[in-house]
């Protein structure tokens, strides 16, 4: 029989049992929509995450005192100097063996590694008495090498300039401190920090990141203001690298250099943790992928229920059409003709379910993403404006939908094709 005629008969079967067919299609629509929504939200989250991480300095490696077994994947990463997101769940890596502060000697050694553009130590801590125009507040202070501030800090300036070599008694203020904590802050004004006067030389843009609530000052000044800090001992070392494709190699070199510097044997745990943004990205992406996979598995269950619905409908159709199958066979239809008709029938159900499922999935994923956030694991949270529906996803779910239809219809179609003409003709 011609494909066109088989197709028309298959369509006829669907449209002459409208309610049953549409209920069956609804089962597939729900399954496909759930998969599209979950996967597209997952992909949207990954893209948003990638964009956020890219806004950070991808070429910054952080070295922190103390060792974490999770270190390789990025324990202890702080987004502070990147100015972007706070990956709270990946912090607090100081769970290891003996802890030793990173020193000026370490920074000197790291600056000698080939792919390192600049390495700089920094310290940070809260200062209770920060006063401006009579108003006092507690503020986080970051002490860094003023010569490299423009290389390390990625948050743009709102006004003024970054710290530069030779700066002393100068500070750069975070956007929220300038806009909310205090008022009427401007460059070249004086601010009192820990009882000492500092000149404001720059104000950062308010970006929503950690830099908003910080004041940057030269490390020599910060040591004298933040309690418990010692000269040439750092809370962390930031390493800016030249070629990010060599990140892993550079991490290894940093580790080896510091292990040797700290006289730690190769088979012992180091007393520091080296974290690259790349490893953070990998870990968060991996977490999101796992979540998407888990949710997709749940969505797949509804698709399986839909598939059972198709099978049930197909068995009913075959039962209803038995006499017509007998007539077609009496007229000369081959088993393959009957098989084709019923496979097309279930395939069309899968196709229509796929079309409406994708539409519903796209609409619902956009809605769900807009009203909710996506957890980044460990307490971090990221709001999403859109979900990402890739062409591959659409093609994939269409294929799955049609395959589900064909597979579910295979057994009923086979049984229909094997009906003996005389038995089929005798059925009422």
């Amino acid at each position, binding site marked *: *029989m011609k494909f066109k005629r088989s197709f028309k008969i298959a369509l*006829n079967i669907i449209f002459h049992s409208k309610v049953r067919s549409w209920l069956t299609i609804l089962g597939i629509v729900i399954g496909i929509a759930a998969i599209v929504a979950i996967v597209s939200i997952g992909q949207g989250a990954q893209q948003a995450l990638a964009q956020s991480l890219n806004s950070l300095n991808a070429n910054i490696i952080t070295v922190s005192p103390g060792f974490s077994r999770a270190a390789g994947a990025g324990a202890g990463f702080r987004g502070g100097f990147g100015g972007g997101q706070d990956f709270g769940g990946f912090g607090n890596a100081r769970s290891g063996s003996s802890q030793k502060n990173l020193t000026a000697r370490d920074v000197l050694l790291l600056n000698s590694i080939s792919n390192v553009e600049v390495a700089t130590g920094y310290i940070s801590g809260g200062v209770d008495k920060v006063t401006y125009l009579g108003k006092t507040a507690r503020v986080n202070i970051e002490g860094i090498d003023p010569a490299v501030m423009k290389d390390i800090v990625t948050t743009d300036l709102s006004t003024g300039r970054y710290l530069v070599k030779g700066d002393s008694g100068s500070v750069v203020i975070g956007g929220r401190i300038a806009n909310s904590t205090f008022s009427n802050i401007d460059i070249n004004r004086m601010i009192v920090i820990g009882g000492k006067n500092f000149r404001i030389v720059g104000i950062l843009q308010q970006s929503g990141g950690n830099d908003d609530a910080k004041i940057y000052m030269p490390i020599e000044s910060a040591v004298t203001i933040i309690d418990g800090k010692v000269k040439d001992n750092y809370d962390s070392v930031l390493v800016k690298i030249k070629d990010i494709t060599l990140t892993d190699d550079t991490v290894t070199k940093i580790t080896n250099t510091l292990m040797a510097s700290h006289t730690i044997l190769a088979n012992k745990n180091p007393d520091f943790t080296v974290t690259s943004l790349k490893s953070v990205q990998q870990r968060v992406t991996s977490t999101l992928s796992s979540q998407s996979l888990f949710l997709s598995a749940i969505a797949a269950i509804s698709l399986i229920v839909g598939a059972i619905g198709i099978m049930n409908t197909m068995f009913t159709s075959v039962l209803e059409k038995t006499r017509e199958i007998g007539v077609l066979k009496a007229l*000369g*239809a*081959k088993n393959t003709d009957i098989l084709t008709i019923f496979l097309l029938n279930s395939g069309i159900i899968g196709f229509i379910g796929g079309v409406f499922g994708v539409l519903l999935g796209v609409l619902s994923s956009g809605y769900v993403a807009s009203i909710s956030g996506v957890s980044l694991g460990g307490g971090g949270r990221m709001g999403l404006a859109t979900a990402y529906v890739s062409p591959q996803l659409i093609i994939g779910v269409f294929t799955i939908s049609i395959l589900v239809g064909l597979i579910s219809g295979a057994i009923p179609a086979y049984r229909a094709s094997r009906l003996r003409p005389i038995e089929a*003709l005798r059925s009422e």
Partner: protein
Amino acid sequence: MNSVIHLQDVWKRYDMGKAGGLSVLKEVNLDIKQGDFIAITGPSGSGKSTIMHIIGALDVPTHGEVFLQGNSVRLMGQNTLATLRSKTIGFIFQQFNLLPTFSALENVMIPLELIDTPDAEAKERAEALLKMMGLGERLHHKPTELSGGQQQRVAIARALANNPDVILADEPTGNLDSTTGRFVMDFLSRLNEQGKTVILVTHELSLVSYAQRVIYIRDGRIEKEITNKRPKKLS
């Protein structure tokens, strides 16, 4: 004259489980030649429909051989049988058996499409057949929009679509009024005059007068065969 259908010691037995078996055909031998007009008649349950199903290759005997155009049905595969049915035999059923969701034209086109006749050719032939049956104005009507007589005429057009050598008619007037019934029988006579082999299964004795050979079946056996030297001509 060539034998188109030959039944040789055909038995048909149904297994009834613990109740044993039921033989509905026993030792049936029948030779049908090209151009014959045969009526198979007998009381209800005598086995006449079973013979028709076996002749039409819709069913297979439990024992014995059936030859269609000299070929043993037993040795043919399902697809070969389907093709043979499509090209050699035209079925006319008492219940018409039209596909309800298709128009009269589409119903007649189906046998042509089953043997991959080009669309335009299939449509042209189906239209011609329906016009010949007086249904030129009803081409696009669904079976439910046609009277019983019109449906049977569509069924006859469908049976003739592939220009088969053999027409198998199972109680073709059973659901028709007498005028339409006479039209159908006249048409079958005309087909026979044109050289088609017509096999009519009926329990109405008035119809057997159209046939040249009348086969009487009782309890699954051929009880007698009568040759009608002067079959009824067209009315």
